[in-house]
């Protein structure tokens, strides 16, 4: 057992998969000598060489497109896209090629590619460095999308993603890179990759969140407790495929659900969860499913991002509104 940041946990997980499988290779901009702009790959090129930890030319479509080719040749590429807002030059390769190749080959081809993307806001960055593009990928059949919220999950989930035979968009909540947590490095007694988890038990209302918003939701739950409300918090962990059974179970108990994400509201994951919970738990609901999300605007200038991003107060306000029905 050791204590480390989420960034170090990812580094440690990547080191393990490189150790375990000579066909696993890392590709991305500045991931070699520099160790990535967030230092997630720090030291890996030094230890595994520039043939396995590759400083790619500055072209995102090139990184993903050649990863597909490498995967067709039997490699297991782990690609880093430097920031959320820079993934879009690769969008065609991801959504029209990577996502569909297993399907159109009637299962003959497998593309075990992991695409790591630091995402989300809250770090005071310039434009294109704070976005939450998950819905585009969730909406694309053939892709799986996961996001850890703790160092322990980051350590486990990166290894599970790399060893999975499906293409996986691995979203890293960049503002939580420096949060610390306990990790058991020599154990693989992990939750299944595509499973949600109750991270705080409660009886009065359910808050479902993922990635950076799990911590915010837990803080809101603590604040609600001081007001006498016992809020259950669920970390979704996997966004595609969704694991909603824990949410259904929770809502049947609490009768109230609030979904929290940084991504804009319209066609965000909250919309899908709301529809499915309404269908599955209709007679248990005491209030409509409420959403606390980013607004339907471009990500704003960072000096006003605290207004844009869901925070403790907005989550609490939604819990309160849920009791108004």
């Amino acid at each position, binding site marked *: 057992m050791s204590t480390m940041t989420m960034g170090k946990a990812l580094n440690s997980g990547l080191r393990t998969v490189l150790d375990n499988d000579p066909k696993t290779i890392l590709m991305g901009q500045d991931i070699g000598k520099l160790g990535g*702009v967030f230092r997630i790959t720090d030291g890996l090129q030094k230890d595994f060489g520039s043939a396995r930890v590759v*400083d790619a030319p500055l072209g995102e479509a*090139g990184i993903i497109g050649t990863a597909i080719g490498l995967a067709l040749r039997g490699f297991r590429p782990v690609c880093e896209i430097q920031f959320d*807002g820079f993934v879009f030059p690769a969008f065609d390769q991801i959504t029209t090629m990577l996502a569909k190749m297993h399907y159109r080959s009637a299962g003959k081809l497998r593309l075990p590619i992991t695409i790591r993307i630091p995402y989300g806001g809250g770090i005071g960055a310039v*434009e294109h460095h704070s976005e939450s593009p998950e819905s585009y990928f969730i909406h694309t059949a053939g892709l799986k999308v996961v996001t850890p919220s703790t160092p322990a999950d980051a350590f486990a989930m990166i290894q599970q993603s790399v060893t999975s035979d499906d293409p996986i968009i691995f979203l890293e909540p960049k503002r939580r890179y420096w949060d610390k947590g306990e990790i058991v490095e020599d154990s693989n007694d992990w939750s299944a990759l595509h499973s949600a988890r109750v991270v705080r038990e409660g009886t009065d209302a359910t808050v479902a969140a993922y990635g950076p918003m799990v911590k915010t939701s837990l803080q809101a739950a603590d604040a609600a407790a001081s007001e006498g409300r016992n809020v259950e918090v669920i970390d979704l962990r996997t966004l595609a495929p969704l694991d909603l059974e824990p949410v259904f179970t929770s809502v049947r108990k609490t009768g109230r659900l609030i979904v929290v994400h940084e991504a804009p509201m319209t066609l965000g994951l909250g919309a899908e969860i709301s529809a499915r919970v309404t269908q599955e738990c209709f007679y248990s609901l005491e209030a409509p499913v409420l959403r606390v999300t980013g607004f*339907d605007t*471009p990500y*704003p*200038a960072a000096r006003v991002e605290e207004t844009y991003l869901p925070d403790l107060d907005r989550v609490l306000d939604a819990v309160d509104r849920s009791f108004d029905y």
Partner: protein
Amino acid sequence: MSEFEMVQLLSPTGERVHHGDYDVDFNDEEYRGLYRDLVMIRRFDAEATALQRQGELGLWAPLLGQEAAQIGAGRALAPQDMAFPTYREHGVAFCRGVDLVQVLSMFRCVDLGAWNPAEHNMHLYTIVIGDQTLHATGYAMGVAKDGAIGSASGTATMAFLGDGATSEGAVNEALVWAGVFEAPLVFFCQNNQYAISESTDHQTRVPLAGRAPGFGIPGIRVDGNDVLASYAVTKAALDRARMGEGPSFIEAFTYRMGAHTTSDDPTRYREGSEVDAWKAKDPISRYRAFLTNNGLADEDFFDQIDAEAEANAIAARTACLALPDPAPLSLFDNVYANGSPPLERQRDEFAAYLDSFADTEEAAK
């Protein structure tokens, strides 16, 4: 890669070099003006770096070392010409008359782009690598469709990019389009030797200027630390474009003396000796030597420019610190040109939510 012919009008020690194809025709005042530009923008850039270090900017992308390339290119532009910058073209912005406080404001994260592009014929900064080269190409195609080329007063367009950007699909498509449609455009590529940590050999095995002919576009490499050569080569390419003779690609061979941005640590990927070697080719000391050796300026002049640059930097700092934070509800402004009722409802609901705190604060009094 360095064997490629490089146009130079000033040696690193400031000696005037003759070139068969390129020259400048400046009077004494104009020669001194270029020096002022170089010093003003370097001093401003240092102030911006300091502001970031003091927590007053979210980020800064320093131009240190690239002053001559940018001032040469920026001063070669005619008023009617249009520039499409990356996020590091502070020297070009200065030449285009953009208030430098409006350059700082994006990096202070109070806005996403402050100046009016039409007022300065300079588009907003583009952060996603290379995307602006396609916009520049389209703009130039529009200029041609408008018939605004074919004479000495024609309009040229300039696309700025860096060495790393040449690997992006968008840039290669821009080169294809510009070549096919003979767009009145100049690609001005500052090869500052690094895309963050990756040296240029991560992007190409041939000189960048040597790639352009494959697209049907002449490629010229110029010493980007030589302001006179940068000016002369750019001016010739712009004139070619405005006369309707087609696009050009300029590789300004220079060096990013500082970090990629203030978030970067270049000691992780390059040697101090390399930086020192480029220091010896500094664009300002070389130009200052040229002015001195030719009796174009004296110590009094240099002191006077230093004082002006100092005052300008301090004024920019003061104005930057006075920039107001955006009002919370302003983030809903200008999402659509013709409005969106659902978004207006979202804004109104959020305004009511914010007001509920005001009520609480009122009640607490």
